[in-house]
């Protein structure tokens, strides 16, 4: 699919967002605003301990509290539901139930659920539930958890290592043997999470007469996998209707957040009334099922004296917490772009997925690839330092060049297109890099510690389902990740687009859909109506995730539009008595090319299509102007049986260069930003302002992970950062102003050449900020290899570096 010639009218425009009018007046219809007649409210009781056998639960006082309809514990859950949907390595051995059953495996794990007339009473009842725990030894250190004799999170598994394997891509041994230099480091990426301002919520209603379970929810994508949710709820797969509600942010944590809707559904069926369950903030922090990556790395990078990077050996221990619902999919994200933008020829990836007494991981913007970006860029900077080569030069030297695309990296994935030198140049210019180095020189003379971090990294988009199962030789798994749309042009010629997944999380899906439809039909985007369909009547949809949505829904729109336009052309061709090839779509009408006054408006064509069947050309079988289209991943290939080649699984790869300029106060460890530049290449851009908003938002979250946010568990498995008093989200005072530049290197393989771009900001910032801090502290020889970076850590690193200098 060649990209269209860029004489585009709507794609690339900063049109006002369709989503905004209702958001600005506070009426977007968040799930927690929903009120159904007779609705009651649920609350959960969370475990106060990290690892314990549940000996007994006495809920008698809770049940007899006025206003309480039901109290449910793990006992009832085993009778009423099946285990939770689980894509992990061995679900029968690390079984995940809706509520803890025989034991609790992390502090905060839900132990009971209460349904009451209002949330206040439900929480009163929770406080009256008496749980007897028999404490078990706690394991929170993943390296301890790997040792024989460690307390087991899941006895049935026989180990806390849920998965381990070493992959070798290319000739690692030779590349290391031939290298002039090997740099090594031990790096720690600590755990943070998406923490959108709105938590996960659901309102469920069960109709015993029809057996239909309706769940309004701000989560759950993958509509074509909802039969798994139905299975957990023990209802027939065609009796579940999940209706998407606009979400107040997600960043991955509402991508398949199934516990909340399943709990609401189970309770609704039990009590015979609609049940609303909305996590409160403490629930969401402790037990969201979507904590981010939590990794320990030992990495070696092999290089030549001239700066050529040859090979990477990566050993990574990932602490998945008490369950492992997505298997090691976050490492698929890593392997999609593990060599960064560089021509590194071989990679060894030794992976351990370890279970501990913590909340499980899920998805957080980047889904694991942001971590590898950080690791690779930190190693490249280390190599630059070791070799005495400028960090910008070493990157330039190793870039995959513009003429080398499509480029297959050692893991088998493909980078579709790119111009990395162009992005780098643009960023250096935008930042006035020479001026910055000059400023740094003067600042150093003044005794100030100013650092500049320049990093280049990838932003993959549109995952293939293969990345969830190519970890095993057998069996092969699903290969579909579709997105669907229904386009309808009504008899008045007005177009409605129906989306089928949890599309709105704060990005601009409706705006983007309107722009694409407008581009396809040459109408004004404000004329397009965008609605959402529930899953029961819906087409297969995977939803936003892995920055896939724009591309996939654009493909679906193009497909549906083509079907409608073909039909319209047939009708107009007959009426206007010209061949369809002589017609064009322009300004809400179909007209004869070269004779614009010979035209039919959309309304004229549509009226015929809907109401005058007998006047339509005989080859048109059906009246109406409506088309469904399911767009499947346009470029996936299977992994090789020996897994030395994982196939193409994440091929639409954007790229960015971020430059951070930071001054460090070496007496306190505090920092301030002097400048922050971000240049992104996400192929063809649909709405530039909207993309910029995503980039800046991503930078803010990346900064949070880098310097402020951490889920801290003590040795007893207590979550110390269990509220917003301690889990520190950056405010407007911490986030710098971001200067943004763009380059557009279209993809040859996607609709309009678009690449996904929603995650990119967060995928770059940790590397850029760490590089800047390290550069600021270069006079001491500090090495930054852990996030979050705190003021105290900075002072500690300076002290250590000073001690090393004294010793040497």
């Amino acid at each position, binding site marked *: 699919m060649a990209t269209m010639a860029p004489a585009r009218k709507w794609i690339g425009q900063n049109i006002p967002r369709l989503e905004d009018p209702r958001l600005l007046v506070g009426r977007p219809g968040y799930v927690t605003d929903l009120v159904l007649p007779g609705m009651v409210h649920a609350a959960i009781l969370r475990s106060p301990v990290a690892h314990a056998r549940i000996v007994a639960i006495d809920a008698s006082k809770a049940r007899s509290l006025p206003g309480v309809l039901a109290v449910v514990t793990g006992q009832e859950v085993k009778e009423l539901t099946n285990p939770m949907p689980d894509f992990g390595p061995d679900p029968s051995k690390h079984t995940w139930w809706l509520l803890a059953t025989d034991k609790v495996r992390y502090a905060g794990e839900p132990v009971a659920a209460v349904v009451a007339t209002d*949330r*206040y009473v439900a*929480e*009163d009842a929770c*406080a009256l539930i008496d749980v007897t725990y028999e404490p078990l030894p706690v394991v929170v250190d993943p390296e301890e958890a790997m040792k024989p004799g460690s307390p087991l999170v899941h006895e049935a598994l026989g180990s806390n290592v849920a998965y381990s394997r070493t992959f070798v891509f290319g000739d690692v041994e030779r590349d290391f043997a031939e290298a002039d230099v090997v740099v090594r480091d031990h790096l720690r990426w600590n755990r943070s999470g998406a923490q959108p301002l709105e938590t996960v919520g659901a309102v469920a209603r069960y109709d015993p007469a029809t057996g239909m379970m309706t769940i309004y929810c701000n989560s759950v994508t993958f509509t074509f996998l909802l039969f798994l949710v139905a299975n957990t709820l023990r209802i027939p797969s065609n009796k579940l209707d999940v209706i998407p509600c606009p979400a107040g942010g997600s960043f991955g944590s509402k991508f398949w957040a199934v516990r909340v809707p399943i709990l609401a559904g189970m309770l609704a069926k039990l009590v015979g009334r609609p049940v609303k369950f909305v996590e*409160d*903030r*403490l629930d969401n922090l402790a037990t969201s099922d979507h904590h981010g990556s939590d990794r320990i790395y030992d990495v070696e990078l092999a290089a030549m004296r001239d700066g050529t990077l040859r090979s990477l050996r990566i050993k990574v221990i990932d602490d998945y917490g008490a369950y492992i619902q997505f298997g090691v999919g976050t490492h698929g994200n890593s392997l999609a772009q593990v060599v960064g933008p560089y021509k590194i020829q071989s990679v060894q990836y030794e992976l351990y997925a370890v279970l501990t007494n913590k909340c499980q991981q899920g998805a957080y913007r980047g889904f694991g690839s942001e971590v590898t970006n950080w690791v690779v860029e930190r190693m490249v900077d280390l190599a630059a330092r070791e070799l005495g080569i400028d960090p910008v030069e070493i990157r330039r030297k190793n870039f995959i060049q513009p003429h080398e695309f499509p480029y297959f990296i050692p893991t088998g994935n493909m980078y579709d297109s790119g111009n990395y030198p162009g992005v780098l140049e643009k960023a250096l210019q935008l930042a006035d890099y020479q001026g910055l180095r000059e400023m740094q020189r003067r600042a150093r003379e003044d005794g100030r510690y100013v650092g500049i971090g320049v990093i280049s990294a990838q932003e993959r988009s549109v995952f293939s389902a293969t990345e969830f199962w190519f970890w095993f030789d057998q069996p092969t798994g699903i290969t579909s990740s579709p997105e669907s749309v229904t386009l309808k042009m009504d008899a008045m010629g007005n177009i409605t687009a129906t989306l089928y997944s949890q599309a709105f999380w704060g990005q601009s899906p409706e705006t983007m859909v309107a722009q694409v439809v407008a581009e396809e039909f040459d109408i004004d985007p404000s004329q397009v109506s965008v609605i959402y369909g529930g899953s029961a009547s819906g087409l297969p949809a995977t939803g936003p995730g892995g920055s896939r949505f724009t591309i996939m829904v654009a493909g679906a729109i193009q497909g549906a539009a083509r079907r409608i336009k073909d039909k319209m052309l047939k009708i107009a061709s007959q009426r206007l008595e010209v061949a369809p090839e002589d017609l064009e779509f322009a300004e809400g009408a179909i007209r004869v090319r070269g004779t614009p006054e010979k035209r039919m408006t959309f309304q004229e064509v549509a009226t015929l299509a809907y109401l005058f069947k007998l006047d339509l050309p005989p080859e048109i079988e059906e009246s109406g102007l409506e088309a469904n289209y399911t767009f499947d991943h346009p470029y996936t290939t299977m992994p090789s049986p020996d897994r030395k080649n994982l196939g193409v699984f994440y091929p639409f790869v954007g790229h960015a260069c971020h430059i951070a300029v930071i001054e460090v106060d070496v*007496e*306190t*460890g*505090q920092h301030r930003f002097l400048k922050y530049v971000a240049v992104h290449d996400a192929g063809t851009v649909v709405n530039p302002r909207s993309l910029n908003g995503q980039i800046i938002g991503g930078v803010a979250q990346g900064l949070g992970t880098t310097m*402020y946010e951490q889920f*801290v568990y003590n040795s007893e498995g207590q979550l*110390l*950062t269990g*509220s917003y*008093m*301690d889990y*520190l989200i*950056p*405010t407007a*005072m*911490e986030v710098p102003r971001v200067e943004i530049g763009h380059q557009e290197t279209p993809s040859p393989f996607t609709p309009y050449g678009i690449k996904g771009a929603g995650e990119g900001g967060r995928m770059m910032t940790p590397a850029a900020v760490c590089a800047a801090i390290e550069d600021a502290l270069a006079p001491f020889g500090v090495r930054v290899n852990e996030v979050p970076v*705190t*003021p*105290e850590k900075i*002072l500690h690193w300076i002290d250590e570096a000073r001690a090393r200098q004294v010793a040497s």
Partner: protein
Amino acid sequence: MKPAAFTYVAASTLDQAVSLLAQHAPEGKPLAGGQSLIPMMNFRLAQPRYLIDLNRVSELMYVREVDAMVAIGAMTRQSEAQRSEVVSRLVPILSEALRWTGHAAIRHRGTVGGSLAHADPAAELPAVALALGAELVAQGPAGRRVIPAEEFFLGPLSTALGPDELLVEVRFPALPSGAGWAFLELSRRHGDFAIVGVAAVLALSGDGRVDQVSLALCGVGPTPVRAHRAEAAVLGVEPSEGVFREAGEIAAQEIDPDSDLHASAAYRRRVAAVLVRRALVEAHRRAREGR
């Protein structure tokens, strides 16, 4: 997170508030701004059975210049105190400390008295009260008494107020004419509780030597700390970077901070030394410039 049930009663006068407190002791809790208490109630970490709302006791809402002091009624909103002309003229260090106290919406409800009576070791106002040698006025069934700031803060969230006493007023002595001052705070994010905060006041005699100095720190132990030995090292001395640096080192030895999630004791000590030095430098600059 919803609070547990309680019985609510709103007092409209001070006398009524005092008698309600006595009546419902020990289960009665006064509700001032609620910016510290209500979060604890929403977490169910605090579950008072009776809440005595003081927010309608308007006789406790005032800022007055009385002799050479600023008298602030305990229920005065922090934002009112911050914008008060009397406060900015006579105790500008208090205006500055209030800028670091939470955010506007919190200061619109939070009260001056409430923050002092709550006595969070990391709170800004107790440090200012200590630095200025404020007087805190308590009222109970037995009548009024004045408690000097250095006797008021007993431990984390613990003060010299009796269970049946309310804090009704705080009196800050006006800064000496020509005195310099500084309030510096290190926190993880803007508006957070201090990891370390320093309030410094410094006055010079005619020959440029330090005539008066006071230093108080928050975030550095179970209560705010007046750094007497550091003050003594500066008093009567000709100011210099070296003198102030040494004062910082001494102050760091006078405190006994805790380690917590956000900072270790060693880090707090280290930063305290730095902030004390910087605060003295800034206070000195203000004193020289007559601001």
